[in-house]
């Protein structure tokens, strides 16, 4: 699943989150930022935000 060990308690999470579960504080901060910018109040619509996500991930050739 990943090249590094993960916290067994994170097994049910999306792989992107469990991948860095060994640093629980970073994982928590990551999730908070993600929720804020993708689902929080914003002049950008959900479609616009998801479109940026796709454009960046594609430009990075990031499959996940």
């Amino acid at each position, binding site marked *: *699943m*990943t*090249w*590094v060990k993960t916290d067994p308690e994170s097994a049910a999470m*999306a*792989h*992107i989150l469990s*991948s*860095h579960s060994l640093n629980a504080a970073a994982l928590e901060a*990551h999730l908070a*930022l*993600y929720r804020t*910018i*993708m689902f929080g109040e*914003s*002049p*950008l619509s*959900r*479609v*616009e*935000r*998801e*479109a*940026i*996500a*796709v*454009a*960046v*991930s*594609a*430009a*990075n*050739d*990031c*499959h*996940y």
Partner: protein
Amino acid sequence: MVHHGAALVRESGDEALAEAVASGRTDELEGRLRALIAYAVKLTRFPETMAEPDVARLREAGLDDRAIVDANQVVAYFNYVNRVADGLGVELEQDWPEELRAERAYWASVPGAALPWLELEQMRELDRIAVEEHGLTLERMMENAGRSLAELARRLLGGRVAGRSIAVLAGRGGNGGGGLVAARHLTNAGADVAVVLARTEGLAPVTRDQLQILRSMGVAPGDPPAHADLVVDALLGYSQAGPPREDVARLIEWTHGRRVVSLDLPSGILHEPHVTAEATLTLAAPKRILLDVAGMLYLADVSIPAAAYERLGVAWPPPFATSAIVRIR
């Protein structure tokens, strides 16, 4: 990409829009979204080109400063999270369909299946058309090939070649000439380049000219070095696809266990001994002979016009929209 591609289709209900966004085809988008995607892709791919007018273009599209900040945060977050995924080897969850989990081709990569894989006979004909009907001389194509080869070597070494040791193994034909062009660019870029010739006599005229340029720069051919961070294999091209001669075979054996990037095809392919390349940079079109070869496969533009492929009778969806070097496998 897969996760948010699915989310974008879900939120927008528009697959064509999602496809245009994923391919960076901003010309198919309108208004705010067009400006946002252009900003996102430019900041991601070419951060060193960013300047104040990039933000002005977002304002012109009707975004206020709070919206611009939010857009920047989303771009920055996805660059962060993409590095997490690529740097820790995060794989898609098992519940995604197998074809989605296997497929990966978006930006500077083109799915190999979309391109024609030429027989060596077709490749010879394509080269003939380029030279005789378009006036693209061997020298012109060789310069493009060698420059792209130097660029791929730079990428494989992490983006910086200064102070790195690179051995360029050159045959006596056109493939060797391309390797010598790469040797020139890599030397100019500050790499410690060792040029090794399979044999010193019987060089093709263009290859001999390239060697002469290198000599004038103080780069003289010699023996294989004790150490090389990367080996450039430019020993044999597609027109020399038979079993390697003894002098070439010796150099091929020397590459074993080293990091190698091959020009056009791994030398000795389908024979013994042969080069095992970490990456191969094939020129102009993929060749069928490369279908089962291990390692990464890149395709480089040597500027052959679309009309030449048409004349050959093969469908040619232009693969170089995003880069002169694209990964095809």
